[in-house]
């Protein structure tokens, strides 16, 4: 076997193994690799007890020196080390990101999301579909509203709780809309069954914006629901609900006086 026909990984690692004496004793003719090894073990029988351990350690070193196949695996390794190292710390993800062991965090993206290190560009021209998908992924990475945080401690649970709070706001808005539709139906029923005077029709016309004002209210509630609940949003929701209830009460009283 020629030296040109070596395994590419061996060529890349540049063979940290100690040089065997067979390199000097190789004859010029065609000698296969297995024949070489057999000859070598026969030639040096004394060192055979020591060589396995040394060769395994050398192989391990070579595996460590080998360039990593993908950056994702290296990221995962660093994540696991971070998990084991600081499993007791009750820190948020933003605080502990500075230490060099853990995932590198970039300040360019919103919220400091984690980005994998750039892989070396392939010289081959990609197909247009893969180029399009990579372009879309790049755009998504640039402007996606979701953050990528280290998964340790209670970070995942906190963000899931945040999501639950948002869904609770969404449910509140949904029930508001249902009540608004019900009130619209109520005013329509009253305008249909009651005496068809013009005033009642006008009040029914008032009832429709009342039902739809709940839409605005629910939309404000929804937009506030994206943020963590604060005093301002709660006060605003309470004031709006009270105002809508007061308007409903006043309209009902006016209707009673009119009839």
């Amino acid at each position, binding site marked *: 076997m020629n030296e040109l026909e070596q395994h590419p990984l061996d060529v890349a690692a540049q063979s940290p193994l100690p040089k065997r004496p067979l390199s000097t004793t190789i004859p010029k003719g065609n000698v296969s690799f297995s024949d070489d090894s057999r000859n070598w073990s026969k030639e040096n029988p004394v060192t055979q007890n020591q060589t396995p351990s040394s060769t395994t350690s050398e192989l391990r070193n070579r595996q460590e020196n080998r360039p990593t196949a993908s950056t994702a695996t290296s990221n995962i390794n660093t994540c696991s080390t971070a998990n084991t190292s600081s499993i007791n710390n009750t820190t948020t993800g933003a605080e502990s990101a500075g230490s060099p062991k853990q995932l590198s965090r970039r300040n360019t993206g919103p919220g400091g999301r984690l980005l994998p290190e750039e892989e070396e560009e392939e010289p081959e021209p990609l197909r247009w579909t893969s180029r399009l998908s990579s372009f879309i992924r790049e755009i998504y990475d640039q402007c996606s509203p979701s953050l990528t945080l280290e998964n*340790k401690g209670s970070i995942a649970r906190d963000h899931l709780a945040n999501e639950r709070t948002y*869904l609770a706001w969404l*449910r509140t808005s949904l029930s508001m809309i249902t009540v608004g539709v019900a009130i619209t139906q109520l005013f329509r029923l009253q305008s249909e069954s009651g005496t068809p005077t013009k005033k009642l029709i006008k009040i029914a016309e008032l009832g*429709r914006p009342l039902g739809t004002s709940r839409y605005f209210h629910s939309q404000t509630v929804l937009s506030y629901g994206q943020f963590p609940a604060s005093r301002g949003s709660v006060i605003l929701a309470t004031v709006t609900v009270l105002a809508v209830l007061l308007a409903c009460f006043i309209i009902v009283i006016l209707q009673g006086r009119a009839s």
Partner: protein
Amino acid sequence: MDKVNQHLLGPRKHRLYRGHRAKSLSITEEELVEIRARERTFDGAYWRTAMKSFSAGMIIIRLFAHVFYKIGIIFVAFGMAILGISILRRRAAGDVFDQRAPFVTSGFWVMMTTLVSTVTYGIMFVMIMSL
């Protein structure tokens, strides 16, 4: 630890969790807490939102006047959209038993839900105003 109830582990019984099969897996406290949090979010919150929308649509369709028929149908469609979003969201959420991968927050899905609900509310607003 006791053995885990099978339905907690989902339909993928043949995969390995931390190197264990689903039958012989014993869940630690931390993993239980994580699983509970996920169930509260995906089974509790999303499912409840969809159920609420469905029930509101049913009530509107069955009880209200015939004019409100389309509004009820929009409620039901909104519930179905929320259900689909919840399914995709559950798939996008990472593995409980593999904590090495970084956690991706749900900003994208919140944006999707906001978009869907805004479009739905806009349509309903227009329909109520044009009754």
